[in-house]
């Protein structure tokens, strides 16, 4: 066929990189890592990355901003807890899938306003999910098995008959789920449905004229996104914290996830991981260096407040220097190392709500 259909070779630098990462993640890190690395860094990183992948489908690819991600984390966690508790003999992996489906169903319901609203209106509307879910999970103690303190505890983590215990086990459990879902998502975004997302985001009217089912596409985006965030909630609650209350799924968490995909790069899966790494690791570095340098001079309150200021200022600086996120930054560095690399796949500059308002003279 002489058509210019993308005839990617079997081995590309990108695929090699991913393969290398997987080898390191499965083969090297478990051997050399410490409990601190797994329980305090990698497991939360994986859970947040997965949540960011989920939100990125909705916000980055399909262009629908959501401030209610934490609600779907909570739905996933509480649903998995209840399926596991109330259906004896149900394999844990089935509980996880059912939890994701529950989150998806609720996500679709709260996605309905997207059929009418856009931009900040939609963003603020999704707060309804945030407040409603938190309220409902607190209000009806059935969800937490009538625990007087309203908390749920992690069931044993098993996949296909294999029990994951200890820091390394929980890490591998999270890693496996994240890898499987991320792989499915890479397929999704290259499919017709993935193109539909971008089409709806970039030019809704044109998409409708062409015959893209706009309303359906939006709801599918909400559904898939909520599914993934729900599964991320299972990881967050059971692989990472292990005993959780609804209070942990508050609006700050939603902002954190949105922040991850923006700092990482909208419409970039790599960005979701880079952003999550940034959010998890960067404050630690800042706080540790601050303590090491100034610990003797200022009291810890002053130090912490200065760090808060520092983080805020860096966010702003970062947005000014590279508004397209860490992913674009990596591209730029890569281009600099290896010039004349072909343009990347997928969506680079989302439109409407996401693009610049006044056309700049410089690059787009």
């Amino acid at each position, binding site marked *: 066929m002489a058509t210019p259909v993308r005839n990617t070779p079997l081995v590309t630098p990108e695929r090699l990189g991913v393969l290398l990462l997987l080898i390191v993640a499965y083969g090297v890190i478990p051997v050399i890592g410490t409990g601190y690395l797994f329980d305090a860094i990698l497991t939360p990183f994986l859970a947040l990355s997965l949540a960011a992948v989920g939100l990125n489908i909705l916000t980055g690819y399909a262009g629908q901003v959501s401030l209610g991600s934490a609600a779907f984390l909570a739905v996933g966690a509480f649903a998995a807890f209840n399926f596991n508790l109330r259906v004896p003999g149900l394999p844990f992996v089935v509980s996880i899938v059912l939890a994701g489906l529950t989150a998806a169903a609720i996500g679709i319901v709260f996605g309905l306003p997207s059929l009418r609203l856009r931009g900040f209106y939609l963003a*603020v509307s999704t707060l309804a999910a945030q*407040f409603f879910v938190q309220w409902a999970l607190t209000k009806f103690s059935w969800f937490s098995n009538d625990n007087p303190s309203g908390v749920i505890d992690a069931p044993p983590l098993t996949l296909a008959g294999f029990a994951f215990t200890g820091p390394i086990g929980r890490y591998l459990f999270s890693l496996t789920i994240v890898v499987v879902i991320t792989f499915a998502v890479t397929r999704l975004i290259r499919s017709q449905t993935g193109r539909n997302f971008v089409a709806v985001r970039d030019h809704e009217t044109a998409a409708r004229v062409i015959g893209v089912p706009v309303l359906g596409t939006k709801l599918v985006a909400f559904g898939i996104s909520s599914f993934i965030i729900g599964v991320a909630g299972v990881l967050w609650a059971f692989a990472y914290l292990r005993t959780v209350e609804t209070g942990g799924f508050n609006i700050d968490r939603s902002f954190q996830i949105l922040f991850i995909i923006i700092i990482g790069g909208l419409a970039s899966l790599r960005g979701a991981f880079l952003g999550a790494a940034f959010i998890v690791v960067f404050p630690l570095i800042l706080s540790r260096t601050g303590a090491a340098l100034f610990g003797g001079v200022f009291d810890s309150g002053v130090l912490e407040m200065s760090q808060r*200021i520092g983080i805020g*200022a860096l966010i702003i600086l970062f947005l000014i220097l590279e508004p397209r996120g860490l992913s674009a930054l990596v591209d730029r560095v890569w281009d600099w190392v290896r010039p004349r690399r072909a343009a990347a796949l997928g969506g680079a500059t989302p439109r409407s709500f996401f693009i610049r308002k*006044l056309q700049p003279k410089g690059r787009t």
Partner: protein
Amino acid sequence: MFDYQFFLEVLIGGLLSGIMYSLVALGFVLIYKTSGVLNFAQGSMLLFAALTFVSLVERGVPFWGAFAATLGVMVLLGVAVERTILRPLVNQPPITLFMATLGLSYVIEGVAQLLWGTQVHGLDLGIEDSPFEVYGVLISQFDLFAAAVAGSLVAAFSLFFRYTRIGLAFRAVADDQYAALAVGLRLPRVWAIVWTAAGVVALVAGLLWGARLGVQFSLSLVVLKALPVLVLGGFDSIAGAIVGGLLIGAIEKLSEVYIGPYFGGGIEGWAAYVVALGFLLIRPAGLFGQKLVERA
């Protein structure tokens, strides 16, 4: 037997609370109208203003002196925000600016606590807060005062935007940024002024809310009360903020009292959003025909 007197009391209480929401919403509207950004830092600006004011008063500065000084600080803040954040981000998409205001809120909160400490403060504006009864309906004196302040602030802004050159520029920018640029309006100056105005609103709202809640970190959370008001009234309509605030206040209280018991109470947190959304489903153009709803 339906208790009309109680209903009336809840309704009036709701309307008066609603005015307080409007006051917070107003700060959002000013900035959204001219730069299309939901300024998440509005809450921390409110906290910062109230904290600065109360700290000055506690250090012996007289009331009006502290008010003037805080006003000055808010002006500086407005100008600084324009210089350091808006100008470099001028052509960026709204969502990026939104995240920048999130970063800004970190900075402001950090600076506020670094400067003035983490202690909570009481704030006494010297307004008696004992209730009085009108035909058996209880009305709060303080709420009436707050409503009056909010009302005059809105009136002042309306007059300002109608009858001054800057106001004209503001409306031009709000209308069409390209056109405003084309006729030579200096966008940065308009932005600086608008952020300053939002700072003033933050100060007034901070004082009124601070007198109610005390001046403490949670003061920044009052923005959550303003968001459904914005959805209902429109992000870009001052009138919408006022009417939306009244409506949300009243609906919130009435639904909590009359519908809440069927769900075990505590529905105020989300009822306002659901009502605002329901309204938009029926009437997509919103209260005052805001743009951005439905297709652009």
